[in-house]
């Protein structure tokens, strides 16, 4: 253990820059890789409108299939990992997850309602229903807990209760409408096959807005790891910061869920991994966590579409396959308070 180290200056541009470069490299790899390989050279030439760019089918494959899919993985991965890290700071709980406040169950119920109420014509409305369900569940948890401002822990408990309630209704609806079972199930496992430029546009808008807000308040999140009295004495308004943090993280999560279904474990695995590697407080490496989350999901999606090619694995299966053992590893290592 080092007894001396430089006083951290909040952000480390080196960590952020290197994680952004790693993300770009992984994204390039993922775009190039697939049943039809596209060379790095062609990708860069096409994206930068240089001579000898791809034409015809290959161009369509790159611009309308691979690129949107990788971009969606980047957006969703960044949203889930950053929200997870922020929830862990706000709730002072290393195992907090972006779905804990009922966002997942609410979105699941919203998706089920879209399938059952709109019979098959639902796909276009699914993200909207899932988004509304997720946000509504979190807002309900928020009001039921009542004590969020004095005791954020009660919000986690009411989130779990609201989540169970939403899951119960969802199960009931699925029992009554067995034709909805299969599409809802496949949506719940998470998929990025829905990636299209229109999905990218609206999800990029909300996720960029949320993440920018979170990056702006990241430094003050240090204060939320203390008691409210200490935070107040150090000059921040813990209630206001907590409310902004939870609202922004929830918006990012709900957007990610409605764009891609429920992709588990990214929100827990990535913040812990980055914290272990950088030995920094979570919120001091939030940008690196966003990049790492994006890279993790791009890799997971690469696995999802190539491992059983031409069949496709749900991406949630890949993230949970890596995430669950890691989760146990973190639990065992928790005693050092560092990992």
């Amino acid at each position, binding site marked *: 253990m080092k*007894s001396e*180290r430089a006083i951290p200056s*909040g952000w480390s541009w080196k960590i952020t820059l290197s994680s952004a470069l790693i993300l770009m490299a992984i994204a390039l790899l993922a775009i190039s890789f697939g049943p039809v390989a596209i060379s790095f050279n062609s990708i860069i030439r096409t994206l930068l409108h240089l001579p000898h760019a791809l034409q015809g089918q290959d161009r369509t494959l790159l611009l309308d299939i691979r690129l949107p899919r990788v971009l969606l993985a980047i957006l969703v991965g960044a949203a889930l990992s950053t929200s997870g890290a922020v929830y862990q700071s706000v709730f002072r709980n290393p195992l907090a997850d972006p779905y804990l406040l009922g966002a997942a169950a609410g979105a699941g119920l919203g998706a089920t309602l879209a399938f059952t109420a709109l019979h098959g014509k639902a796909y276009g409305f699914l993200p909207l229903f899932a988004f509304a369900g997720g946000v509504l569940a979190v807002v309900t948890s928020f009001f039921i807990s009542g004590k969020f401002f004095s005791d954020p822990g009660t919000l986690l408990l009411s989130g779990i209760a609201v989540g169970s309630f939403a899951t119960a209704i969802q199960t009931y609806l699925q029992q009554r409408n067995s034709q909805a079972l299969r599409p809802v199930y496949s949506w719940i496992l998470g998929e990025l096959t829905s990636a299209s430029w229109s999905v990218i546009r609206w999800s990029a808008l909300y996720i960029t807005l949320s993440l920018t807000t979170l990056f702006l308040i990241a430094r003050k999140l*240090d204060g939320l790891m203390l008691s409210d009295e200490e935070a*107040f*004495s150090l*000059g921040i*308004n813990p209630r206001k910061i907590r409310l902004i943090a939870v609202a922004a993280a929830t918006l990012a999560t709900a957007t990610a869920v409605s764009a891609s279904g429920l992709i588990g474990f990214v929100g827990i695995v990535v913040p812990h991994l980055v914290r272990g590697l950088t030995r920094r*407080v979570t919120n001091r490496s939030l940008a690196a966590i966003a990049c790492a989350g994006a890279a993790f999901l791009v890799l997971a999606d690469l696995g999802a579409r190539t491992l059983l090619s031409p069949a496709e694995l749900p991406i949630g299966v890949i993230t949970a396959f890596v995430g669950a053992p890691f989760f146990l590893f973190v639990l065992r290592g928790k005693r050092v308070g560092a990992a």
Partner: protein
Amino acid sequence: MISIQDLTVRLGAREVLSDISLEIQSGVWTCLVGPNGAGKTTLLKTLLGTLAYSGSLRDAGVEVFNDQTRNVAYVPQQPNIPIGMSVLEYVSLGRAKKDGWGRESNSSRKLVKKVLEETQLFGMQGRFVAQLSGGEMQRALIARALAQEPELILLDEPTSALDLHHQISVLNNIENLKERGVTIVSTMHDITLASMYAEQLVIMHHGRVTIFGAANEVIHSAELRSAFDDRIDVYTLDGGQAVIMASKEQKLSNERETPQKGV
């Protein structure tokens, strides 16, 4: 000077502090003493400005509720341990209000180093806060408060988790603040220690202040005994230092006569 007039604080439907009127002098150590549930911690939080109240609580003439312009350090009894935060980062948080969050001036770095030395934490600054022992954590809390260079420091049971050796070392750290003109308000279970260090004692019972004044006067008062249901004995040593001990005999006879008192 902090002047408190007819202060009443409600938490939900419960009245936790009732009609408190009190003056706390600047640059002096004032200690709040009383049994559990007397409202000591609530009074500390009200002094900090985080709890709404009726009546008046003015620090240098200004009502304290929600006033973050004052420079007040708060040391809680049971701190949250931030995951992944080093001792150095933790103590440096004391500078956040002055320098801005996530920024540190050169003078702050020097001050933090000095504070770490004063609290015997120098050499441990690279450790995670979560790895500190109870005594080290308490010193880290005091160090962060010192780094704040506060005008007023509020300490909730600063010695409750410590052995006697560490109690004295922490109390000496706090006492040094008086030389810098800092006003100190603390709660403390050990009344003997409180009377050794604090100039002023405030006796609290059932949310009310029953007596306040110079420590050596209050310690011999009937109100102090009454706050602890006459279950304490006060002895005076040859040097004049008062020693307060639980009165075992009294307790037994009291419990025989009025068993509901102990409930």
